[in-house]
């Protein structure tokens, strides 16, 4: 089922959580709402679910008006950050709950409920824990039960509110890959909220970046990551270095670098900000006409396959962060205190007016 959100606004007291937000979620897609806390992403999710009602605007399910529909009638599966499992029920009863509260005439028989719950237990790989209580499960197991419970009623839409937020790093990684595979199997239209950009990039078909109650950008993970539309998106996705300078007729002058910036061809000596991702900073031993500037290695940190380097530029009054593959660092024989040349491979320049 497709979801359309038309010009939705919502305020809580004087705080405007959503400002005129419009969004289309095509049927069968897995969409991530990504943003910092207070950006309105959870409010939007709750409005889709019917747990909150918008102050203005409309929600359409498959083109049909659903703004005034009750939560119970919307056929949405909702997964909460803190699982919200019924702690007095076993895993089995939790998953069966949605089926057992159906009105008598549409309620499946006992045997059918049992079969369906067992199929879901198989799906979440917890077949032997059917009789446990939620208190006896680990966080990852609880979240999987919550997911199975939401799926049991065969929802048209699956909504997940920071589903992995309360889990530790390893379980989170495992579970989000599992969610991706699950979605590839069942293709239910899904929207999940997260503030973790890595999670959004890895799991989602499409990413909607939100900030201050508005949508900043939406697109596929690579679109959003490679071509951020606004400084905010640049800043929020991945670690980034900021340069201040000026841009004039398509050429930017930033802290000693000269970069062409065709999208700002009409700018006339305007103040501008340049963004360079850490892994887009190239480090060289010599400066063979590449336009790099002198830098001193201040600090080196190996994080898995990558090496993170803090570089002090020129006279040392400012520093940037570069990330390079480990073998690259080994080839360069980088040591703290080395003098090297740094050069941005790619820089995105925004004229200062757009600054947030």
């Amino acid at each position, binding site marked *: 089922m497709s979801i359309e959100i038309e010009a939705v606004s919502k305020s809580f007291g004087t705080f405007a959580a959503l400002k005129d937000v419009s969004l289309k979620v095509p049927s069968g897609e897995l969409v991530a709402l990504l943003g910092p806390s207070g950006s309105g992403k959870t409010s939007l999710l709750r409005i889709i679910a019917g747990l909150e009602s918008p102050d203005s605007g409309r929600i359409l399910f498959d083109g049909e008006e659903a703004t005034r529909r009750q939560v119970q009638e919307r056929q949405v599966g909702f997964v909460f950050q803190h699982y919200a499992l019924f702690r*007095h029920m076993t895993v089995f009863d939790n998953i069966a709950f949605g089926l057992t509260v159906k009105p008598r005439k549409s309620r499946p028989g006992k045997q059918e409920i049992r079969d369906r719950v067992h199929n879901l237990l198989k799906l979440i790989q917890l077949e032997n824990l059917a009789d446990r209580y939620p208190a006896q499960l680990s966080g990852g197991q609880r979240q999987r039960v919550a997911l199975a419970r939401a799926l049991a009623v065969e929802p048209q839409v699956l909504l997940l509110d920071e589903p992995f937020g309360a889990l530790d790093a390893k379980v989170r990684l495992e579970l989000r890959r599992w969610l991706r595979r699950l979605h590839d199997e069942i293709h239910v239209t899904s929207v999940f909220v997260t503030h973790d950009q890595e999670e959004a990039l890895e799991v989602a078909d499409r990413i909607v970046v939100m900030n201050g109650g508005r949508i900043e950008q939406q697109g596929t993970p690579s679109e959003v990551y490679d071509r951020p539309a606004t400084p905010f998106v640049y800043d929020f996705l991945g670690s980034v270095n900021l340069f201040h300078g000026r841009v004039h007729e398509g050429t930017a002058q930033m802290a000693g670098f000269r970069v062409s910036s065709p999208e700002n061809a009409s700018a006339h000596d305007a103040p501008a900000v340049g963004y360079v991702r850490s892994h887009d900073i190239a480090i060289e031993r010599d400066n063979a006409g590449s336009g790099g500037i002198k830098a001193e290695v201040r600090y080196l940190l190996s994080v898995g396959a990558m090496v993170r380097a803090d570089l002090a530029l020129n006279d040392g009054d400012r520093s940037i962060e570069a990330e390079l593959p480990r073998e690259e660092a080994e080839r360069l024989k980088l040591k703290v205190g080395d003098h090297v040349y740094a050069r941005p491979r790619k820089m995105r320049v925004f004229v200062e007016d757009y600054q947030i």
Partner: protein
Amino acid sequence: MAGVSGKNKVVPGFAPALGYTIFYLSIVVLIPLSGLFFKTATLSWADFVAAVTAPRVLASYRVTFGSSLAAALVNAFFGVLVAWVLVRYRFPGKKLVDALVDLPFALPTAVAGITLASIYSQNGWLGRYLEPRGVKVAFTPLGIAVAMVFIGLPFVVRTVQPVLEELDQEIEEAASCLGANRWQSFCRVLLPTMLPAILTGFALSFARAVGEYGSIIFIAGNMPMVSEITPLLIITKLEQYDYAGATAIATVMLVVSFVMLLCINLLQKWSRRFAE
């Protein structure tokens, strides 16, 4: 139990703590109560049976335990309601209502008894409207239950309130997303979660009602066989210097109360089997 005193506990001193607990409980509870049994033991078995099964005594058991049970049930129901309103809604004067709940705790029981008796008597504020309709409260067993409800109210409210406060709104939201209507959410999700607390409140309210004396004697009318509670009968025996007879009845009360509380505790344990 040895595991509890393991070396890796933050607070040391399992042995002295347990020792002190037992010592304290002995002084405060066990020794006075065993005195009761020793005094009772001065009676022969036949005398004991005769003392505790006299028709007037049996009638008083029925009045006391029956009214207490009824009062505790009423309190369980309305206590949950009061707790619900206090937790879930905001209204002017909420703090005042919250404080009002504890009043039966603080009020001297005799004051409560006299107040209730005068309100429900023939010419009282409420009695004047109830009596013409054939509802006699003061000086009847119904009056006893009313007094017991009054003194037992805070127990259920105060045990259920924190549980309700802790209950996550998300639980209800999850239930309604799954298609449950309000009634189903309440019966199948909220009520089972509150049940252990309700049972605790029920047990406390019941126990308090069984032991209540001061507020009841003013409103009960104290007619033998009809509205005479067991604690009053014990006092009567004491006034007649029949100490052994008084302790015999007290012993029966004690044992019955203990068994009932034990049952409620087991029930409570069952109702929170999920919280392992």
